[in-house]
């Protein structure tokens, strides 16, 4: 089988990429989705808070997904469900051989361009780095979310949550509404990993305590969980003796963050960033393998699906351009680097000639910064620095993705070999 563009994953990223690729004139598209429906993780995110930026109204996850499913349906973009992509192999002629499997068997598709939109998965239990039994009653927050919201089954009645990522916070509220008692949310770090709004509306609204600098140090129960011990930790995250507190509970949810799902990408030879675990991309969202693009949570973990959709539209458009323009000579690339509190940027390379008039650069900080100053400057090959922009922010926190804009007009005149420095300074 042959097609112009294969999109791996039918979540919000895959759908938005397909729609924009189609609208940019490349209509020969195939979406491959391993689940039994389109929409991705949004189907289990039944809470509201999606789409304020894209649709100017506040939608729930399934409603947001339905809008993009409808847009893809209007364009009659083909998709295959229950179909898992196993391998992507760049060929000598520049095409990519995509191998997938479903109930009909194995299929091979030759594509000119591929958009990676596989999303992310929860960090494995490794976070729970304690000896002893693993009784029943311990779930990742996302698994519990699926049980409650899709299958209509409650995993337990007395709950402790380890990790204050957004899914954990959302599940604290969800299980409380369903009649469970959420005793505490424990967070190893001295700050929450989730959005402030979720602390307010998921914990404070229901008087659920958030215990910072605290972790689970003991699991009680052999066959089924009967309780956990929480303990405070010091600055070096070592448990402080004498601070043990016992909680009688039948359920422990782990909400220790998300990791982009990139086995396929690395098999395909795509270079990954050690910081985001996602592909290293250019301003066209093209990976190190020409004609392979990435967007959404597989690229870096987003808290806002609106940003996922915007990013995926860019990827879809550039995939279409790649297909339409057979001249694949490489564009000039300027590397983006971080300094101070900024941990990473997406993209890692800006292509001044190819980019839009404004390029949105996403980044996260590694710690909480107060009275932060965010500067972007160009570091010229002769060592001279030219400030391009400067912005003040009251607070910046690792839980919240930040963005800054680069102007094409600022980058075009920069000589080859220049670098763009994104820097955050402030009181940590």
């Amino acid at each position, binding site marked *: 089988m042959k097609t112009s563009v294969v999109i791996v994953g039918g979540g919000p990223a895959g759908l938005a990429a397909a729609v924009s690729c189609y609208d940019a004139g490349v209509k020969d598209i195939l979406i491959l989705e391993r689940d039994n429906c389109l929409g991705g993780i949004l189907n289990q995110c039944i809470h509201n808070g999606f789409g304020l930026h894209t649709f100017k109204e506040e939608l729930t996850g399934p409603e947001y997904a339905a809008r993009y499913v409808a847009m893809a349906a209007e364009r009659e973009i083909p998709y295959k469900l229950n179909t898992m992509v196993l391998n992507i192999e760049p060929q000598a002629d520049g095409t990519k051989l995509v191998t997938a499997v479903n109930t009909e068997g194995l299929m091979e598709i030759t594509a000119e361009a591929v958009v990676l939109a596989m999303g992310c998965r929860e960090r494995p239990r490794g976070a729970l780095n304690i000896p002893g039994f693993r009784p029943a009653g311990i779930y990742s927050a996302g698994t519990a979310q699926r049980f409650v919201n899709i299958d209509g089954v409650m995993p337990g009645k007395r709950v402790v949550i380890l990790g204050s990522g957004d899914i954990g916070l959302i599940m604290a509220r969800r299980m409380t509404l369903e009649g469970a008692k959420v005793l505490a949310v424990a967070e190893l770090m001295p700050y929450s990993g989730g*959005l402030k709004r979720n602390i307010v509306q998921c914990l404070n609204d229901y008087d659920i305590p958030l215990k910072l600098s605290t972790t689970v140090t003991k699991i009680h129960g052999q066959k089924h969980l009967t309780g956990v011990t929480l303990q405070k930790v010091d600055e070096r995250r070592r448990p402080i003796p004498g601070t043990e507190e016992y909680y009688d509970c039948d359920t422990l949810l782990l909400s220790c963050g998300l990791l982009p799902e990139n086995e396929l990408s690395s098999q395909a030879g795509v270079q990954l960033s050690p910081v985001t675990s996602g592909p290293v991309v250019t301003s066209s969202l093209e990976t190190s393998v020409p004609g392979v693009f990435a967007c959404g949570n597989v690229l870096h973990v987003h808290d806002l699906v609106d940003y996922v959709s915007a990013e995926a539209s860019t990827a879809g458009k550039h995939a279409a351009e790649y297909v339409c323009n057979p001249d694949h000579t490489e564009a000039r690339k300027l590397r983006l680097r971080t300094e101070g509190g900024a941990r990473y940027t997406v993209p890692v390379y800006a292509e001044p000639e190819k980019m839009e008039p404004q390029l949105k650069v996403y980044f996260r900080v590694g710690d909480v910064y107060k009275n932060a100053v965010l500067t972007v400057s160009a570091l010229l090959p002769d060592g001279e620095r030219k400030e391009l922009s400067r912005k003040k922010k009251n607070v910046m926190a690792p839980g919240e993705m930040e963005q800054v804009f680069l102007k094409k007009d600022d980058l075009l005149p920069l000589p080859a070999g220049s670098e763009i420095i994104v820097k955050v300074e402030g009181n940590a």
Partner: protein
Amino acid sequence: MIKELTCINCPLGCSLRAEVEIVDGNPVVTSVTGNTCPRGEAYAKKELTHPTRIITSTVRVHGGRLAAVPVKTASDIPKEKIFDVMEVLRGIDVNAPVHLGDVVVENVAGTGVAIVATRTVE
């Protein structure tokens, strides 16, 4: 009196400072700062006088491809009514098919607000 709060209307989560005066025994918000957009001001006024929330949950479905259909209150309801609404939702079930936007319960728990389905379950 100055009250500090976090706007929950969007993920920016602006830190708001509101000045509250008590007029005839009722709180009245006289000024709001720190909001990035007008929704923040409206939120502070509501939150400090009569707080409301949108509630999302699920309702059991019979004969559908899924066991439960996600639902929400069509608009925000008074915060103190949250558990009354949940009680009503636990007591009902619906038959497939249910379509996105279908009204599942009218005037839930006397709030005057409907419960609508947020996904199609066939």
